[in-house]
């Protein structure tokens, strides 16, 4: 789960990472209240999960209440690369002497934590890496050992962080590592991490991505979840515990297992079709989940045919078939189904579908993935997909 900047800063604050004083605002009036509390001058920042906010006019400096009204009014509701701004973060404007970069992530190849630290912050770190790879210190940290202040300090020295900022940055690195590990982040990034003229350092931005698998030990994440930007289809799927991602095509996809679902998208694409979604009903899916999956797909107006691709392992053929029959009794599906059913109890499943007496125009069965994909794409084209 990716956090908005303001949520990232609130999360940082839990781990004593210094951030600029500020608050989030959903309206112009709230923005003014936040600005008065933070103290002028303030920066009004659009809260969207996409880069390039500044260039799009989503970050503005304000010296008084009138300017806050003007800028917050313009920014709220603004469309930045397809993301509509619903909130602004208003914080006290900082005097900046230097901008650095710091982040922690998991290096999957090395199977260790990775600290990236650079004295050249405030720009895309990819650009720094391309221009001068030596400007970034990469330090692997063994998760069993963790990170000591001494090692953090050494990294700061090697990254050529300014002398006066070394202690502040080192302390920040330890706190950020604590946030990354104890806070169960996939990514914890500060860019820029600033040095102020008074010698202090703090986080001017926050990019945090949380590991959904760790949600069970973080009840405090519930409030972040409430603001996640999902489309209607994705919300419906989540309420049924289905792994769903909306796409732009016309063939609705249901498969069991992420790999098979991705593979199903690939095959549909290879035979000239386009997928309307990725939907993994997971291992051990039962009749209810299959019925729910069909409801989610049916919600999508673009869907012209539905391809159900099941290879039973834990998932059993008769459960899949019963779910389809139940869903067809419950929901008026707008698009015809093509199913490929293999694996555990596939025979039983196919028999259930045949005995249900569903007309061929609404449900057909194919023996292989490729044949089913071709049939689904042909039906989609017949039904008016371009």
């Amino acid at each position, binding site marked *: 789960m990716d956090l908005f900047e303001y949520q990232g800063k609130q999360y940082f604050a839990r781990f004593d990472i210094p951030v600029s004083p500020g608050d989030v605002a959903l309206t112009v009036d709230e923005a003014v209240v936040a600005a008065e509390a933070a103290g002028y001058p303030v920066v009004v920042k659009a809260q969207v999960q996409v880069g390039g906010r500044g260039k799009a006019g989503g970050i503005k400096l304000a010296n008084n209440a009138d300017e806050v009204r003007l800028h917050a009014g313009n920014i709220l509701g603004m469309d930045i690369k397809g993301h509509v701004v619903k909130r602004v973060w208003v914080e006290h404007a900082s005097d900046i002497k230097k901008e650095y970069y710091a982040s922690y992530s*998991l290096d*999957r*190849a090395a*199977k*260790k*934590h990775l600290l990236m630290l650079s004295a050249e912050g405030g720009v895309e770190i*990819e650009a720094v890496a391309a221009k001068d790879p030596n400007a970034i210190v990469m330090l692997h940290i*063994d*998760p*069993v050992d963790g990170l000591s202040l001494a090692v953090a300090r050494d990294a700061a020295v090697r990254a050529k962080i300014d002398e006066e900022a070394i202690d502040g940055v080192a302390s920040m690195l330890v706190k950020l590592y604590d946030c990354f*590990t104890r806070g*169960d982040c*996939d990514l914890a990034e500060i860019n820029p991490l600033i040095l102020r003229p008074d010698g202090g350092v703090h986080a001017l931005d926050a990019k945090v991505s949380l*590991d*959904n*698998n*760790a949600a*069970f*030990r973080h009840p405090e994440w519930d409030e972040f979840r409430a603001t996640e930007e999902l489309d209607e289809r994705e919300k419906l799927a989540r309420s049924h515990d289905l*792994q769903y*991602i909306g*796409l732009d095509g016309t063939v609705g996809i249901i*498969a*069991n*297992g*992420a*790999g*098979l*679902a*991705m*593979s199903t*998208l*690939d*095959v*549909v*694409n*290879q035979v000239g079709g386009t*997928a309307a979604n*990725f939907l*993994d009903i997971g*291992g051990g899916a039962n009749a209810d989940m299959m019925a729910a999956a069909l409801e989610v797909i049916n919600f999508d107006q673009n869907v012209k045919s539905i391809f159900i691709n099941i*290879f*039973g*392992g*834990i998932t059993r053929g008769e459960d899949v078939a019963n779910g389809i029959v139940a869903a067809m009794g419950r929901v008026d599906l707008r698009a015809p189904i093509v199913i490929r059913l*293999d*694996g*555990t109890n596939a025979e039983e499943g196919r028999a259930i579908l045949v005995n249900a007496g569903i007309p061929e125009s609404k449900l057909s069965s194919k023996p*292989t*993935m*490729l044949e089913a994909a071709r049939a689904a794409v042909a039906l989609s084209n017949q039904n008016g997909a371009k």
Partner: protein
Amino acid sequence: MAIFVNADTKVIVQGLTGGQGKYHGLRNKAYGTQVVAGVTPGKGGTDVEGVPVFDTVAQAVAATGATASFVAVPPKAASAAILEAAAAGIAFIVCITEGIPAQDEAKVFNTLLRNHPKTRLLGPNCPGIISPGKCNIGITAGEIAQLPTAKGPNVGIVSRSGTLTYQALYELKQRGIGVSTCVGIGGDPVPGTNFIDCLKEFQADPETHAIILIGEIGGSAEEEAAEYIKASVTKPMSAYIAGVTAPEGKKMGHAGAITSGGKGTAKGKMDALRAAGVKVGLNPTEAGDLMAEILASMAR
């Protein structure tokens, strides 16, 4: 021969008294796997359909001489269960648990590396391993795996995705091709066993004559495998990478399957494998066809 597990492998099931552990543990036993004990704290002295249950892995190992463990416990308890098995001297641990936090996985992996270097972990979040006719640990339906033949040729399978592991087994069964061992390494960010570990074993296994690799988008495991294949694998290979059409920046169900900024894309992985001499199919069926062609040309 087979890799990692064979007919002599004695297996305990951690979580045998739970829903998943019981269902799959007993299925593995019914397949012919030597499931010798279960472990559930507090339930020592009981049994599950004749399989004795112990309070700790150490007790189960002392009583049965087990060398492998099947970990089927919920995410919160999985890390501790893995480390307990390693501390009790278990050499091969299969963990099917889905949803373990990445921080825990990283810690477990590095703890094993440091304190139990002889212990191999398969998974977490994997379908398990099957050496057809000999040993099945995990959730694979045994009947979809074609038995290997004495004279071969037999194929080894290594896969990062659960259902595609079954699909690969099925493709070979349709063609009557025997399987030496099929290993599902799982799609999580920090797998205990990776492609290279399996390729090394398959290369050394006299019963394995060719290898299928099933990968997916995200990370760089396939690229690293390609480097290894180029340098050290002489047996012929086919492969398939899932996720050619996956949109960038979206997680497709697995924690591991994500493409970002052109890194870890299916195309990059396919190109790397092709450059290493692997025949790459555009779907699982094509990978099966390519393997059949490889075996046919070997026979000539």
